């Protein structure tokens, strides 16, 4: 049984370059980067080198990058820190309905503390409308947070325009670029971004490392109090091996954006062509061209996503779905719901995401199994295309 991994948007394997970079930090240079002795200073050098690499990859200065434990912590820090530091100017925050859960839950927590949050609607392809944003900007708006690339459908937002709109009104702009690194060229000066969240494990780096970029001069309160690590902004011993891996991964990813995207694009186009030919009654959710190459979200009619996912898993193929149904409470994917995907496709939507190690044989195997399984599930499904029960 062949094992095919089509869930690279959830996490990726660590590439060998990254592992080689991480190995010394485990047993050779193992000091605490905050210590004053030579063991600590050597570890601190590794962290600084990684920090330089991260800063260079996004076009920032090294003293503006702070390492965290991942993208979720960076999102929490950015939103809660900026909101609480600027609450004297106002208490209104604007975000979108298709954000990652860490952003949405942080906003809900702030709502409980007296802040007001507007969740912007998106159109059918997942894009936030500038006109809508401008309409909701008020005098007491202090933060706008819109993700660069959506993790479920892969749509790329018009970040430059949104950031410009925000700065015209003097509002701080934060973006969650966890899925965007390695897929889209990011330059914080060119795009005029104030805060940016990053994560290592989506770009062939280790889990447990991420970073938040905070432009110099932006007021942002700290999330974790304690020691004076990370220039006294984020307490906690720095995860030296993971951070070293992160630095190497982001350097490689930004160096190889074009090559990787090209390779993934050819494979993905092949996959799309095969699946549209062989499987009927499907819908590709998301934007047609303004999206990253690696993510496809397909809705299958007359089929349930969970049973399809489990059947594919029994054949060795790993995919993911956005919705979950636990304890009788159906949490349909909030992203697809905000995009007004028709109901018959909401229940049967799966996300396929490709990595740079995907091969044509894997895709052929996956397609053959998808065709077989969808046909089998549709044969025991009581719904037909004409809308009448069989």
């Amino acid at each position, binding site marked *: 049984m062949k094992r095919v991994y089509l869930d690279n948007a959830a996490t990726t394997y660590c590439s060998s370059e990254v592992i080689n970079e991480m190995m010394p930090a485990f047993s050779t240079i193992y000091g605490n980067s905050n210590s004053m002795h030579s063991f600590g200073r050597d570890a601190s050098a590794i962290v600084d080198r990684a920090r330089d690499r991260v800063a260079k990859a996004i076009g920032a200065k090294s003293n503006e990058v702070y390492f965290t434990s991942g993208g979720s912590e960076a999102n929490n820090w950015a939103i809660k820190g900026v909101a609480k530091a600027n609450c004297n100017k106002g208490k209104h925050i604007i975000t979108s309905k298709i954000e990652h859960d860490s952003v949405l839950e942080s906003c809900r927590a702030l709502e409980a503390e007296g802040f007001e949050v507007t969740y912007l609607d998106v159109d059918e392809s997942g894009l936030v409308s500038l006109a809508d944003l401008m309409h909701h900007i008020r005098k007491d708006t202090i933060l706008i947070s819109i993700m660069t690339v959506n993790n479920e459908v892969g749509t790329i937002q018009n970040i430059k325009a949104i950031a410009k709109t925000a700065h015209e009104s003097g509002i701080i702009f934060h973006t969650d670029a966890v899925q965007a690194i390695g897929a889209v060229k990011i330059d914080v000066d060119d795009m005029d971004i104030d805060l940016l969240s990053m994560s290592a494990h989506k770009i062939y780096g280790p889990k447990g490392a991420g970073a938040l970029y905070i432009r110099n001069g932006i007021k942002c309160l700290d999330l974790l109090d304690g020691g004076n690590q990370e220039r006294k902004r984020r307490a906690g011993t720095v995860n030296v091996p993971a951070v070293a891996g992160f630095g190497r991964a982001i350097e490689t990813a930004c160096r190889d954006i074009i090559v990787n995207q090209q390779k993934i694009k050819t494979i993905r186009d092949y996959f799309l062509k095969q699946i549209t030919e062989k499987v009927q009654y499907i819908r590709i959710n998301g934007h047609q061209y303004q999206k990253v190459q690696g993510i496809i979200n397909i809705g299958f009619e*007359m*089929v*349930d996503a*969970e*049973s399809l996912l*489990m*059947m594919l898993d*029994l054949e060795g193929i790993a995919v993911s779905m956005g919705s979950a*149904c*636990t*304890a*009788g*409470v*159906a949490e349909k994917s909030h992203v697809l719901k905000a995009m007004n995907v*028709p*109901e*018959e496709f909401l*229940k049967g939507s799966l996300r396929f995401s490709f990595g740079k190690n995907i091969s044509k044989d894997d895709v052929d195997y996956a397609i053959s199994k998808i065709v077989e399984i969808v046909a089998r*599930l549709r*044969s*025991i*499904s*009581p*719904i037909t295309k004409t*809308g*009448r*029960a*069989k």
Partner: protein
Amino acid sequence: MYSHKIFEIFKNPSNAGGLQGSNGIGKYVDEICGDFVKIYLKIDDEQTITEARFKTMGSVGTIVASSAVCSLVVDSSLAEAQELTAEDILQVTGEYPVDKMYSLDFAIRGLNLAIADYYQRIEKDDKPKRKKSEDKKLKDKKVKQEPIIQPTQDEIEDELNVIEREEEAIESVEVVEATKEYIKEEVIAENKEQESFDFFEDEEEQNEQVDENEDRTQDLSLDELQEEESQEYLDEDDLEYDEFGDPYTERREVAEKEQALDPVDLFLRGGDSGLEIHNLSSSDRISITTTTEETINIKATRMVEESKTFSPVIETKIISDEEMKKLSAGKKEEKSESKVSKAKAMFDAMFEE
């Protein structure tokens, strides 16, 4: 999450599929989850279940539970089947994760609804059966011909009043050639939809349904007949979501209708309410005659903006108020002459095709 045993059943569920000649069909759709369970039962005269099948669209737990319910219920009496509980299913499938226990309820409800359906059918069997000669006619499976009832003068005038009101709302906008054919096409399309319906699954059902309706058709007028036909299509065994509304077919029908409508007509009907058009192309010609320049600019620019692909060719003409009155008076004269002939043509077209 799920145990190994559940996955084994899930790979190859037993009793999957439909059942020809079933007496009891139960459909259950959950509002929250959207899982759909349909259970077919074949019950003999001694009230024992001889065969049971299922068709499910749902999660792993629901499919496995439906399969287990069918295998438990075969060769048992109706009374025993009605007392089936979730624990009985768990003995067949093994433990379920706590979060997914609700899917056992879906399968049991499907079963109970199938048994209820069987009891309902027994009640209908008491009515006298049809003759065999009439059965042969039904085997052709065509839609029965409606008695053609010519409309009375009052009904014609009512229809024309509606047309007049619509045309007044349009005011001074004319469309070249589009609306003339649109009415005909819409009526033809509606009739085609009705003709292509195949709503008889089994011969038994066929007989029963026609049984009910034929006795009543003689005394109904055209409107009531049309209402009744549409109600026939809402019979239990034909639609999926009989209890909870019909999202799939409704949405599809609405979408098909919108696609079939002429985009220009959509705009005209909406007047100034701001309906969107998407499919105007450069081959559409629209002429606007108004009395002020402002309305031209507003309407023309809005149509160009809303066309989104090509800008249609728009001819504009500004006339004085007096000329406008003459124009509209002229139109009304034309209308009064061809009123009756228009209506007759419409009704003839409906029944010809």
